[in-house]
């Protein structure tokens, strides 16, 4: 299966998580689905990578050192060049208020941890297909 878009370009996804195992699993899974994946290990790194590579989509863990996922999302939204990049938050929290907080910060969707890889992939496809 290939996720190449109409122009034949491989979509780029930025994945950020401070848990190396989870990050690798997310990245591997997305790469296998045909996306190019840029990895980041904390919030600050994710923000820098987003500004530099301008990916097609960003998958952000909520709890990361240096800057949390909400903060990164807000910073992305505040910046002209990155304000339109869709963001999916990976959240370990179960409270509804946290989900709301994610949407308030400007996230497009969220996936709850523990998550199912199929679910993550279909959310990613849904968002990228929509555009």
């Amino acid at each position, binding site marked *: 299966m290939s996720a190449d878009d109409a122009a034949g370009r491989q979509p780029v996804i930025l994945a950020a998580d401070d848990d190396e*195992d989870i990050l690798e*699993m997310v990245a591997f899974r997305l790469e296998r689905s045909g996306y190019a994946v840029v990895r980041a290990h904390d919030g600050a790194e994710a923000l820098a990578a987003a500004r530099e590579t301008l990916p097609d989509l960003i998958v952000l863990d909520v709890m990361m050192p240096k800057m949390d996922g909400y903060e990164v999302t807000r910073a992305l939204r505040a910046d002209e060049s990155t304000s339109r990049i869709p963001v999916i938050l990976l959240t370990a929290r179960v409270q509804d208020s946290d989900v709301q907080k994610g949407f308030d910060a400007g996230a497009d969707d969220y996936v709850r941890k523990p*998550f199912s*890889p199929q679910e993550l992939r279909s959310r990613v496809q849904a968002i990228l297909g929509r555009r």
Partner: protein
Amino acid sequence: MTLFITIAVLALLGAVGVLAALAHRRRLARREARRREIATRLRAVAIDLVDGEVTPVPRLSAPEALVFADLLVRYARGLRGQAHERIAAYFEDTGAVDREVRHLGSRRERVRVEAAFGLGDMGSARAVPALLAALEDRSVDVRAAATRSLGRIGATEAVEPVIAASVAQRLPRAVAGAALLEIGSPAVGQLLVLLGHEDPHVRADAAELVGLLGAANDADALPTRLRDASPDVRAASAVALGRLGSADARDQLVATLSDRVPFVRASAARALGQIGGRTATAALLDVARRDEFDPAAEAARALARIDPALVITVAAQSDASQHLVEAADRLLL
């Protein structure tokens, strides 16, 4: 003189101890480096397995198999659904589940704790009977680890024994609560029964968990608990009603705003904020204006959710309390 020599020898022993510890650390570090190296090599295979790709798992040496299992366990902690089932199937096929079940009967406490904990990460339902038996273990750590694992596996048959162990104070309440949250809605029926338990701590915990796990129609049993003899139960019931958003309970919660215990009034105010609806505004306004700190603060926050415009208006009036003023200021951020 002998004293001096004795103590000097002790000092030397201490130094030798440090050196031994250092050597131990280096051994651990080398082992970790080896683990990382193997993990990098096996990561692709592990993710294949998790993804349900058909590639067969290659023959692994004993240390490799350990690292591979460790990788899968780490993934299992972040995964659910089919991926999680595939991991469980792998551990069943390799005999790891049966081995850990045997370890639950070990004489050494550490082995039992490790087994009880590890079985949860493997996620195999085959381990459930053994884990249920481990709830009777003489070590609280084994009981807690087994509880956690039963939660991770989502074993509905664990609801009753876990609650019983928690009630008998054989388990920390937080551990039992977390496991029941993992098991989810199947636990609600039992919890509703516990709302009538004789111990107020149990009633309060049950009310809190019903609020977190229940559906809207589970709320029916809660309003009577707003008149419970224990303030903890009254407060927990109010919080639960708020979480479940049960609009039917609005009037009872309004009545609870005049409870004689401040933190019960505060919980009722917060719940009314979550449920919403303007019929509560007059009572909340009264609490926000006149009550003591915590209930008044919660009432002002609740009003800010229900009717922001009202809060901004009343905050400008002369009889506004500090809480209404704060709520208005926060609304205008």
